[in-house]
């Protein structure tokens, strides 16, 4: 049953995000935007010459599988979670690390100049955001005394982590945007700079899978932000699933708004900010949480 509900939530989420993204990017509201993407199936799949077939073929598959696995350990309501792993938070981390693998493989496997630069660029981006995803989650786990995502939500009954450890959210939110290569931190796809970047040489069904994977990834990330920092399903009056949906949509809207109004960051800026600002803040956050937990 949980699986079914999760699947419905995921598909609904992907649809809403596709509509919102198209709205924020093109300033036009189109109900059909997500459906239109399926038309890509009518196009010929073109495999670039000299490509590394193993890398080229696995990249879209990994990009779709990995966020699905990550989503499976995130609770939507107290009962609705595909599998409540005792090490859920760690598993999510591990799964999402493969986004990097998928993108680097896509970039290298395509054997095009733009795609290759884009793939290695994402590795650079990862070096920036990587720690900023991991460290705030550790601080969240400190409070919950568990890596189970359900326990993490329960630990926020008194106070959301967004309030309890705002520094964590401050670095975690941009880090998830970087992980989901959402504008303004969309270096590996960078429309305008690299003509589609890592996805630039994909056509037809592979492109469809690539885009689908990206949408699922964004749903997973927004849900993760909700679960770790915004108290998941917790909220008054409305049913649990409504709260989860509202919060997830809100997080996505916030991310997309940032993408619309902020120019793309330079790779150097991403790295500088991650290491000169992000890491110290994330460390301070861990220390802060540690002290508060022992003091209170």
């Amino acid at each position: 049953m949980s699986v079914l509900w999760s699947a419905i939530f995921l598909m609904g989420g992907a649809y809403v995000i596709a509509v919102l993204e198209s709205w924020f990017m093109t300033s036009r509201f189109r109900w059909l935007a997500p459906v239109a993407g399926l038309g890509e199936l009518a196009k010929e799949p073109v495999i670039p010459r000299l490509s590394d077939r193993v890398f080229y073929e696995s990249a879209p598959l990994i990009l779709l599988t990995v966020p699905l696995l990550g989503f499976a350990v995130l609770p939507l309501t107290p009962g609705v979670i595909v599998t409540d792993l005792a090490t859920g938070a760690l598993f999510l981390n591990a799964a999402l690390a493969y986004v990097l693998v998928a993108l680097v493989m896509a970039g290298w496997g395509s054997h095009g100049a733009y795609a290759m630069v884009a793939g290695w660029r994402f590795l650079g981006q990862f070096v920036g955001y990587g720690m900023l995803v991991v460290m705030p989650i550790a601080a969240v786990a400190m409070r919950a005394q568990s890596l189970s995502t359900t326990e993490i939500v329960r630990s926020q009954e008194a106070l959301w982590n967004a309030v309890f450890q705002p520094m964590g959210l401050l670095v975690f939110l941009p880090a998830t945007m970087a992980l989901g290569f959402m504008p303004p931190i969309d270096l590996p796809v960078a429309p305008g700079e690299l003509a589609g970047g890592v996805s630039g040489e994909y056509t037809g069904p592979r492109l469809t899978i690539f885009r689908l994977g990206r949408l699922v990834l964004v749903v997973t990330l927004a849900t993760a932000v909700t679960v770790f920092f915004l108290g998941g399903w917790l909220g008054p009056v409305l049913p649990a699933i409504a709260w989860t949906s509202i919060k997830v949509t809100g997080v996505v809207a916030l991310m997309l708004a940032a993408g619309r109004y902020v120019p793309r960051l330079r790779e150097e800026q991403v790295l500088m900010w991650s290491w000169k600002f992000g890491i110290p803040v994330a460390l301070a956050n861990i220390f802060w949480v540690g002290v508060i937990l022992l003091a209170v």
Partner: protein
Amino acid sequence: MITGTRQAHPSFLRRLVSRVLAIERRAFVVPEAALAAGRGLDLEAAGLSLVSTPRHASVLVVVDDLPPDLARAAAVVYAQMPRPRWILSVGTPLPEQLPPADLTVDAEQAVLAEGVAELGRLMRMGAFGSQAEDFVAEQLVTRSQYTCPMHPEVVQDEPGTCPKCGMDLVPQETSGDSGEHAHHHGDGEMDHQGGERHGHGNHEHGGDDSSDEHEMDHGGGMEHSGHEGHEGHEGHEGHEGHEGHEGHEGHGGGGFMSMVAMTRDMPRSPDGLAMERFEAPYGPLYPGLPAGLNLTLTLDGDAVADSRISAGNTRIDDLLGLPSPLDEFADRLSRVDRLAPAAYRVLGLRAIEDSGALDRNDQMARHSTSVLERQRIASHLIWLSRFGMLLGLPWLGTEAVSLAARFQRNPGALPVESLEDLVGRVRRTPLLNRRLSGIGTLSEDLLSHATGPNQRAGGVVRDSRTEDPLLADLGFTAASHDAADAYGRLAVRLDEILESLRLVRELGDIPAPDLRFGSPDKRTAQATVESPRGTASVRIDIEQNLVSKVSLEAPSSAHLELARPAIQQLEVADALVTIVSLDLSPWEIGL
């Protein structure tokens, strides 16, 4: 018959998926969307979704004449679009390199919108058809030849052994296109020797693998050895004159690979590491860069180690059809630069004025000033749109181009509020200053060679408009900024949009004057205007009431020279920002 159709019976499922495909008409625009905006066309408002790679496009939209080199590039782009694919021609005949258009519409917004709707119908109906023809352009055909690794002069069509040393010949690919490609071919052979000498460390890069797989996938239809090409690549770097690293260590023959030996002759990055370089061509049809700009970046990682940049290969005499009658000269000159035709028309008229064949009067001066300032607004808007797209601000890309198109369509109505609003929003964009400051800074020396906004951004105000008494009356001040970087250039152009808007409003509606041409009293005449890109000047020779010789000094020619030093060692994104911020118009270069 639709040339880009997929050959299959249009079954129910196929028709269904075609309908879905037709919801979004993803279009790749050649030469570029900016030229459409210059003609008053807003492609996105007409229902096209513009994409940045032909791989993701279904429609090739041709919005302007393609000179021969761009026509060849358009054929490459068309070949790279996956089927089903369509060609929409907007008021222009297609060159012979492309198949005939599936739909031709006039260059008018309303007609275009109807045409796009009709295109949607074509896409629903014609994605699959029983007949399809291969698209074969001459320059895309490659064939395999075999050459000896040691004796590059040995080239034959059949595999075999080298008559000189008996080694097995290795395959390499040559393109059907002559000229330029033959040159590359030569490189490859020379490189190969270099590669051999350096040892075997590079084979592991997958070249071998991929060539095997390639044959597997395509049934060996197009043989190509990644192995050969890859070594060639390395060797190529070896020949760039870095002798300084020779003789560190002997070549570790046999199986042993020494990193030092392998990288011995390779060029060093600024941090002293020897890495391989590769080439990334950005043009002539890279969306976002001005069409016709041939930019090739030699990349060291994602940094620009070297670059080649060029544009234009038309002769001005052919372009203008010299000798030209005096009364037609200005119109002909306006065809030179497609990104600023009105400015060139004014330039032509002023040159004729200078010759004495056209009487100066106040109305003419006011009218031409107004035209010029309008051109400046439109040109800066189109530039802003380009810049916005590059920076990842799609709203700016869409809105600026749509405003420019609206402005061109209806020159009578000034969209004052929208313009001021747009400029305000750009100025308020967070982090824009951080993104652009210090990028592509022109040194003092380079700055002295620049003109127009590029120069004024560095605080050097040289603007021929300041000497114009008419503009002085209107209280014109030239915009300037204190940093010759991408941000300074943006700031100056934003200021200029508002200043030009003010001037146009102050000048008011001026009816186009009647031009009465007399006979000139000078044999040579000259004129200068401050075009949107900087100072453009022309000198004409007149013989028997005909313009017989024209020499043109265009701002982009000077700016093209600045681009290469300005992007050296920049990251790719910053290099592109620098090049776009210089606002080059390839059409006025190399004449």
